[in-house]
């Protein structure tokens, strides 16, 4: 894991290379996190690959920070196999215009994972080869993993909410 100082070095280097990209750095439980501006995601990831050696993108996943704004977050887990180093690049996108640039052209592994984030959270990835729903049926309305989407399922029948005997007892 890049330690506190290493993270700051990376942040400043990125700040000069792509002005205005790094908004915040978080070093929590010995894991380095980098909050970046949403529109610069492709350049930041390309820069991290070229100059800082993070050659593998392990995971792309979405997070819904419901009460706080901007609400929809996307995390990119980067990994450097030589130095066994991990870095999380995070970005936050508001609900009304959830468009960010897709990184699939540079990182083919993000193809299905971005489709899952689109399917579950509604973050739209421009430039994705075929952005369709991956887990839910094609014609499903709503994005299930948002915090305000109801969990669904049937109410479990207990004595207090059972309306008459449901007819199983013959």
């Amino acid at each position: 894991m890049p330690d506190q100082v290493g993270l700051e070095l990376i942040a400043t280097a990125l700040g000069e290379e792509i002005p205005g990209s790094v908004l915040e750095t978080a070093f929590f439980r010995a894991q380095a996190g980098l909050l970046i501006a949403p529109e610069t995601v492709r350049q930041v990831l390309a820069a991290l690959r070229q100059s800082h050696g993070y050659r593998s993108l392990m995971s792309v996943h979405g997070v819904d920070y419901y009460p706080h704004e901007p609400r929809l977050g996307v995390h990119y887990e980067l990994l450097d196999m030589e130095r066994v180093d991990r870095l999380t690049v995070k970005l936050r996108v508001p609900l009304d215009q959830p468009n960010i640039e897709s990184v699939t052209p540079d990182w083919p592994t993000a193809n299905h994972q971005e489709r899952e984030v689109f399917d579950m959270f509604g973050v739209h990835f421009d430039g994705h080869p075929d952005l369709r729903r991956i887990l839910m049926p094609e014609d499903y309305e709503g994005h299930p993993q948002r915090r305000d989407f109801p969990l669904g399922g049937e109410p479990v029948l207990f004595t207090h909410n059972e309306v008459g005997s449901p007819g199983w007892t013959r």
Partner: protein
Amino acid sequence: MEVIREGIGGPQSFRERGLLARDLLRGDLEGLELERLVEQSILTTTLDRAVDWARSNSLFPATFGLACCAIEMMSIVAARVDVARFGFEAFRASPRQADLLILSGRVSIKMAPVVRRIYDQMLEPKWAIAMGACSSSMGVFNNYAIVPADKFMPVDVHVPGCPPRPEALMHGILKLRKMIQDDPDVSWRERYGAVGTEELLPEASPTAENAGA
């Protein structure tokens, strides 16, 4: 159906019965003893019971491995809980050659029409076992993505457990086998009194006539 061979007062030892059979074949056995021997060794049944006896002992399950219960379903074919002892080990891949659908796993809303179509494409007479808590009643995942099997197809046996032990599934299959032998023609709704779950076939006439299993 248990065949109870009540002991008639006649000779009991194997040797004597062998001699009696020899006399019968030679044709010098008459009267009461002949009556008794014939009564003892011939089974009378109806056509239905004979057909059901054959059907229930040769169910061909359709491999329908959805999720974790599929692994336990696979292990009933393995050596320890051998389903071949009862003649059910011929797991057929296509619904055309199967007459028992073991729904092993959780049925998601995207998979429900597929399960229904495969159940329709199975030839009559067909039965369905909902294996595990997820296909019987949404089990651990009471959420937006799971559909219990009863909502879209008639199920004969529900095997509880998550995943049920292979012995539990075996017990479910044997319970279904007994059910087939007892009274198969009554459709499963009358048999369980499941009022209100009549099956509305999309293509069949819209009146809620009872389409038997």
